[in-house]
């Protein structure tokens, strides 16, 4: 019997799963189980994208200088509304990496060299590198402190670790200035207690920089209530918007902290006063007009955000309906797949980790820290049949598995290593249903058995 959670159609709304697949552009033999990495767009949005691109080519100057800003504003408004944020606090950037870089590079560090950036060990790779670079390039002016948490974590553990980190940073004379953390981590794909940490940041007087790359369209976000100092989220991941579209939210009180876009462009106002700006005059705030034109790019993805919001509302039944389905499918589908593989999904006691559209399934591949060579047992399923290998080999295996998935199974699943085990991450979506997760389970089991037979050693890399 269809429950209200499985997206069963009522009125004219489609039942989620294969019925919705026809809206998308996948190869008929491809199963997209990794929506979380790069997202995808339905045909309707691709048509809108091409429509804007046509406008660009028909009268380039007219469109770019005059029409584009107006369309951009409407799109900002639509996305801001979804996030319950004032429109004037929301601007488009190409992606969350640029959003994070924009904030961190703009912050001016205090002369006394006591400033510190706090972040978690679960930070997304390129953001971690960004922090490395900031530290590296500021000649000792700012340091970074990594807060270690282990999966699966309980929310109050994370809060406790944060408080401890702030205290410990201060106890050695440092000034924790800003803390970077996720809404949802990437690998594993689990929810981070970002609301709690934002509250803690406010309490401790630390700037909150939220990496919501995995955010809008996947989980409910209320930026006014959250009241973070900075927030960025990709629209091209879960909002069915074309790639190269994210937003950067900066509340009015902090906009002066972000004087430059990344790269710096026409909108920058030098401290010595306004200089010539070739773009038409505007009545918008410096913050908004600054981000309106940041070097010539194809801004069509930005314009499509509004269309995507509308499409999701009209064709899929709206954000709540979509997110209820994807959360349900991720958790239940994930459990089903794990059952087939003979393992489990990653979750914590309060089950807050799985309140999203991503799910992580353990593989029966264990990673040892010693240099014991791998042993292979493949004849049975269940917890007893598992493969063990050293870390270096595990990375090779993960790489091999992803390539085999592309080549032999016409899909892609990312793998990662956590707590001495290999895990697979699956993404639920409106075009998937329980059968896809069952299929995924069988494929993962198959892969694990092939690994057990050491196939990755004899097969050539793709």
């Amino acid at each position: 019997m269809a429950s209200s959670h499985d997206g069963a159609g009522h009125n004219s709304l489609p039942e989620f799963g294969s019925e919705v697949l026809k809206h998308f552009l996948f190869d008929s033999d491809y199963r997209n189980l990794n929506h979380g990495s790069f997202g995808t767009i339905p045909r309707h949005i691709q048509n809108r994208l091409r429509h804007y691109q046509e406008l660009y080519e028909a009268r380039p100057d007219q469109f770019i200088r005059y029409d584009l800003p107006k369309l951009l504003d409407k799109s900002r408004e639509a996305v801001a509304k979804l996030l319950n944020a004032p429109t004037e606090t929301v601007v488009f950037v190409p992606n969350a990496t640029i959003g994070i870089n924009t904030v961190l590079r703009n912050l001016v560090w205090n002369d006394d060299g006591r400033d510190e950036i706090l972040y978690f060990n679960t930070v997304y790779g390129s953001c971690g590198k960004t922090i490395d670079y900031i530290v590296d390039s500021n000649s000792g002016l700012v340091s970074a402190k990594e807060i270690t948490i282990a999966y699966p974590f309980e929310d109050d553990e994370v809060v406790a670790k944060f408080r401890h980190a702030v205290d410990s940073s201060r106890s050695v004379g440092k000034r924790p200035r800003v803390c970077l953390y996720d809404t949802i981590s990437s690998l594993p794909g689990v929810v981070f207690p970002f609301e709690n940490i934002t509250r803690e940041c406010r309490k401790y007087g630390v700037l909150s920089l939220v990496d919501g790359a995995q955010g809008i369209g996947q989980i409910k976000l209320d930026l006014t209530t959250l009241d973070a100092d900075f927030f960025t989220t990709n629209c091209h991941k879960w909002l069915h918007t074309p790639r190269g579209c994210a937003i950067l939210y900066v509340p009015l009180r902090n906009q002066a902290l972000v004087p430059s876009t990344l790269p710096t462009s026409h909108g920058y106002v030098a401290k010595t006063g306004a200089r010539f700006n070739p773009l038409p005059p505007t009545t918008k705030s410096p913050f908004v007009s600054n981000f309106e034109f940041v070097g010539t790019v194809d801004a069509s993805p930005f314009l499509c955000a509004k269309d995507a919001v509308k499409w999701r509302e009209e064709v899929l039944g709206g954000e709540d309906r979509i997110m209820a389905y994807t959360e349900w499918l991720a958790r239940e589908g994930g459990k089903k797949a794990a059952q087939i593989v003979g393992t489990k999904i990653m979750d914590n006691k309060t089950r807050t980790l799985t309140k999203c559209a991503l799910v992580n399934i353990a593989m029966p591949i264990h990673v040892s820290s010693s240099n014991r060579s791998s042993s292979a047992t493949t004849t049975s399923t269940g917890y007893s049949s598992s493969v063990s290998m050293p870390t270096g080999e595990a990375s090779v295996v993960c790489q091999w598995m992803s390539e085999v998935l592309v080549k032999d199974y016409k899909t892609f699943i990312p793998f990662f290593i956590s707590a001495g085990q290999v895990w697979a991450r699956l993404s639920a979506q409106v075009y998937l249903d329980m059968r896809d997760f069952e299929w995924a389970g069988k494929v993962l089991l198959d892969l694990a058995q092939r690994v057990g037979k050491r196939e990755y050693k004899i097969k050539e890399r793709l």
Partner: protein
Amino acid sequence: MHPADFETAGTGGGDANSSFGHAMRNKHFFFAPSYRPLNHGSFGVFPRMVQEYQQRLQLESEARPDTFIRYTYPALLKEARASIAPLLGASTDEVVFVQNATSGVNTVLGNLIFKPGDVILHFSTIYGACLKTIQYLGSNNPVESYQIDIEYPMEDEEIVQVFLDSAQRVRSQGKTPVVAMFDSVLTFPGARFPWEKLVDICRKLGVMSLVDGAHGIGHIDLTHLGRVGPDFFISNCYKWLMVPRGCAVIYVPFRNQHLIQTTCPTSWGFQTTIDRAKLNKSEYFVKLFEKISTTDNTPYLCVPIALQFRKSHCGGESTVMSYCTKIAKDGGRKMAEIMGTETLTNVTGSLQQCCFVNVRLPVTLADLDAPDSKGLHIAKWMQEKTPAEYETYIPIKFYKGGFWCRISGQIYLTIDDFEWAAETLMDLCKRVKGGEWKTVSNMG
């Protein structure tokens, strides 16, 4: 050769190709039928063949997202780099792609390490966003900028001399000019700049040369760039190479690659100083730019097809650039004839060795009984009228006491487009003389 010859002569070689002018425009480009595209230089356009290819790639990125982005894209990216390197007389691993020249300039300048007393030299003709970049940099880093004022028309020797004098002056103040930034072709006026001579001077002075070739690839011949040897060179591909928007190239010769630690934004490829020391330098540089952050990078992959189009349908790079340069020159001359004014030129004609022409409008401040201070406003009023009421866009600026326009030559234009431009500008001048500019405050 008369531009009309190109209409019938065709362009030789390759498949069935269109002759330049309106046939080219109608067959290969997407302009609204009533639109006169006279400002190619600002945002460029790309032909049908390139669009079809790009759309195919975009479809592939939705058909199998991970497959395309993780496996197909890197291979095509390398091919694209290999196809563009020869246009710069460079090695494949000396060129990487970014979204646009502004991003490229920010990347290079943002990587340089400055100490108190360091100075960035630049000319007054610097592109606006680049000036903003230098200003922003100066607000957080121990570096100042020194502006070298020039006003056209100028001879190359004069430019070189004023540059030498400026470098000398900075040194005499006890400061160190560490990098000089200058254009290959200026934005306004649209003029070829003696960048080769300046690169040479920079080398002799021990100053790094950063050439902003925003107007570069596909506009002027750059196959000698590797030999000329600037320290950094940046060029947009979407402007004159007919590649979709969001594609520029950064050239960093092997000897300088160790100076580039990070992309802008910083991303996966970044390694800390300690880790970097263990790596092969040139390997690091190329890998750094391979995966930055998620955007639609299909424009980068369109470089080979754009080159193919220009070769098989337009007779190749030299033919294209010759036509654009000549039509600009001849068209500008025609405009000056019609309007009774002149084109911007210097004695040697060196500044006109590009695809732009600058023509003075037949109206002066005296005609309008307006003070100098109104020049900017009047120019802007006229400029904004061109898209609003004339179905075109013509950049018009108040420059050296006169009103000047910049027209971009292109393969889809013929002389009659320039004649039309002149008629249009005459009409605008008539309106300006009638005092219309006084009534409007600002344009939206």
